């Protein structure tokens, strides 16, 4: 524990008269390497530091962020002054036991201990694998690792130091035929264990072959289909389709949405179980304490198809009279914490992936992902590849498709869940201008009836 920093922060917090004050301070180091084709296009070493004060007083929140730690006492005063400018009905926070703790990363192979030379050698190999496939137009290999030390202290006596390591990796290839350009890619990540990205050689040559195959693939026709989703895309689906509306800040101030999202309400048939939790260990969304100093949990959102929980900050939990879940997160000192997902997944069902496909007469098998977005009720998520299913058999490859759904109908159309749960760690979630936040998503294969597909 850094006793000097702790003294500075304690001093700054000691004399304030506000309802609640918290201070965060980050020290951050990162390395980014990007290859375009076989050549290294960018390599960067970044160091940064910065902090923020958030104060609650007189019914409002005040927030101040900065680079330099000096004069912290006045920054506390400024945050309180900002809070008092707001005014209004009192805001309560759900109580949390004060804690003093220091949490170190337990990553097996810390990337900051690996030389730039060794990282480059590995990425050279991946670029080489992609280019071993003849006919590729261009490719990228992107790698990033980061090491974060985050200090959190509150006027209630909590003082926590947490270390967090993160690795992200993307391999992609582009193939062109005249005006037709197709691409294929794969994104992965790890909670700081470099060994998890060391054996991607076959995935590198796979994206190259897939980009070329997509040039020959035909487009899907827009319309409604029975779709089977692979675990990667199904993870994105549950994140977008359901995860975001489980975030209590979308619910707690809106009486009509509260009615729709009433605990005990059925959203799907009883084989669907959905979990979110930073207490699920060793994933990119894992941590011991959130950015309000609340211990992480593992929480059911849907149990046997019924809404049983949602994700909270201290403010939303108090307002709704529900249990704290430890989901208040911030991507950095420039931002206050907001309610976010962590590791979100659908639990295993009973069917094998083959059984889910065997029943489909006319449908589409969708894999991998480009991205996903939600407006709460409606959501989209896009597949990196799509395949025709005909009479229970996977047939020809199609161009990538966009899937679009509706919270209130699509979950009810989910009629099959596989038994092959797999977590994907390649995603970064965006909300309220805070992007990308490290999360993981997962699912077994799932099947959805009458899903709206937009072809290309």
């Amino acid at each position: 524990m850094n006793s000097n920093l702790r003294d500075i922060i304690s001093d700054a917090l000691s004399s304030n008269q506000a309802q609640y004050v918290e201070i965060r301070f980050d020290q951050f180091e990162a390395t980014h390497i990007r290859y375009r084709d076989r050549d290294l296009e960018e390599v960067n070493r970044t160091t940064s530091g910065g902090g923020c004060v958030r104060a609650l007083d007189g019914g409002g929140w005040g927030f101040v962020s900065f680079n330099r730690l000096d004069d912290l006492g006045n920054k506390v005063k400024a945050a309180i002054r900002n809070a008092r400018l707001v005014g209004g009905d009192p805001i309560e926070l759900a109580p949390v036991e004060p804690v003093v703790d220091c949490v170190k990363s337990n990553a097996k192979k810390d990337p900051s201990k690996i030389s730039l030379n060794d990282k480059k050698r590995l990425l050279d190999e991946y670029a080489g694998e992609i280019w071993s496939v003849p006919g590729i137009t261009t490719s990228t290999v992107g790698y990033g690792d980061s090491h974060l030390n985050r200090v959190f202290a509150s006027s209630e006596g909590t003082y926590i130091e947490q270390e967090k390591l993160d690795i992200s990796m993307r391999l992609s290839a582009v193939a062109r035929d005249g005006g037709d350009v197709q691409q294929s890619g794969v994104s992965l990540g790890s909670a700081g264990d470099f060994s998890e990205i060391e054996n991607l050689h076959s995935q590198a040559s796979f994206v190259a072959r897939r980009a070329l195959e997509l040039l020959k693939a035909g487009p899907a026709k827009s319309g409604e289909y029975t779709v089977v989703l692979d675990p990667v895309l199904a993870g994105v689906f549950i994140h977008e389709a359901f995860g975001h509306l489980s975030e209590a800040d979308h619910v707690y101030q809106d009486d009509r949405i509260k009615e729709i999202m009433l605990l005990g309400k059925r959203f799907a048939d009883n084989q669907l179980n959905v979990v979110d939790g930073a207490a699920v260990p060793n994933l990119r969304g894992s941590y011991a304490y959130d950015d309000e100093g609340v211990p992480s949990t593992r929480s059911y959102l849907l149990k046997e198809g019924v809404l049983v929980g949602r994700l909270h900050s201290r403010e939303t939990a108090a307002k709704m009279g529900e249990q704290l879940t430890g989901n208040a997160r911030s991507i950095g000192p420039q931002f206050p914490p907001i309610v976010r997902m962590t590791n979100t997944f659908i639990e295993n069902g009973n069917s094998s992936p083959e059984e889910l496909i065997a029943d489909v007469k006319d449908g589409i098998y969708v894999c991998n992902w480009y991205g996903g977005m939600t407006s709460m009720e409606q959501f989209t998520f896009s597949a990196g590849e799509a395949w025709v299913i005909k009479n229970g058999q996977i047939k020809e490859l199609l161009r990538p498709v966009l899937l679009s759904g509706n919270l209130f109908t699509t979950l009810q159309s989910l009629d099959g869940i596989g038994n092959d749960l797999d977590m994907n760690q390649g995603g970064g979630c965006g909300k309220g201008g805070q992007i990308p936040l490290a999360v993981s998503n997962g699912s077994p294969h799932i099947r959805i009836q009458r899903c709206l597909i937009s072809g290309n």
Partner: protein
Amino acid sequence: MAIKREIEKVLDKAGSISEQAEVFSLSYWNEPVDFEANRLKTVEDRESEGLALRIIKDGRIGFSSTNILDQLDGVVDNALETSPFGPVATLQFPSATRFNNVDTYDPTVETQTVDEMVHLGQSLIDDLRRHEPELLCDAGVGRNVVEISIANSNGLYASYKQSSFYVSVGATLVNGTDMFFLGGSKSSCNPILNIDELVASVLFQLENGRNISKPASGNMSVVFTPRGVAAALLSPLMAGFNGKSIIKGSSPLVGMLGEKLVDARFSLWDEPLTPMIPGSRMFDDEGVPSRRMPLIDQGTISNFLYDLQTAGQAGEESTGNAHRGINSLPSPGVSVSVISSGDTSFYDMVADIEDGIIVESLLGAGQSNILSGDFSANVLLGYRIENGKIAGRLKNTVINGNVYSALNNISAIGNDGEWIGGSLYAPSIYCNDVSVATRG
């Protein structure tokens, strides 16, 4: 300027150990006031400064960045550590030159009081809720001041200040399980004092979107409003102009300079010298002077976008289009896109369509293969057109198409050009034969 001393210190040290060195610095101050669920919730004050160092040593580019300005030796050491691995430099940092002045700073942005900003946000919410008390509004009013400086070992030292001010609102109207999202925003280098246009635009959405339309399916006529042009067409169109994609051959426009791309009524320029527009700047993020540059001139491809490194690779000159943040190397991009207006009014376009849709905003755009010019998304806010009239809000509807095909199939371009988000000026565009599907 507080950071000038640090820039000079880093440049001196880096210059002595490399062939060329460049320091880019960015400092900002940002003060937003945020409203949630119709009430003021948070007042924030954010400050940050940082610098990035690029060196060329033994012909290769080394790069590092930091915002810890009292430990500057590390930034030089880190750049030195990365340079043996870095890309081969194909650039020369520019020497000192004269820039065309473009005004992007209004000091009154800094003298606005928080009370005035709060009042503006509250009156926006109150105006909207007078028309529909059930609206639940989140709103934000904010101001930023950004200062960018560039110095290099070839003698350039240049900086400019930019102010911006924005007002935005997102409102929800929930009816049963139907969620209707409305909203809009406005930004300028000057303080925004008048919100009438913003209110009128949200009220238009409210009046035309209250009822849900019949499903729309098949290939049909689509009117993209100025916001719809921004949401659906701009990024797939611009992706092909990026010099990086041109030199790597991944742009479908490779080798097409001077060829006809889209309908001759369509022109698009980069206009970074437009005064008091937040996207404007007198020089780019490498210190190359900004210039007005046609990209599509009456349907024909006129220029691609280059920064110094990509221009060097392509054997071209930089077009002054380098964009960067503190933590990344420059990359080419458009600064202020201006699309030429036509002569048809929005309502004349609608009146001309028997069976079609209007697109205002999309969900999931940009998650398809934009390199090919494709767009594919859910229509977050759009309306059905039946027999020349707006006939309700679309729901559970997707559109997809290709921007080059769509812009080759234009029926009319609107006379209703407006600024969207501080870096795009666009009119409505009426295209034919775009694929639409609704879940029945």
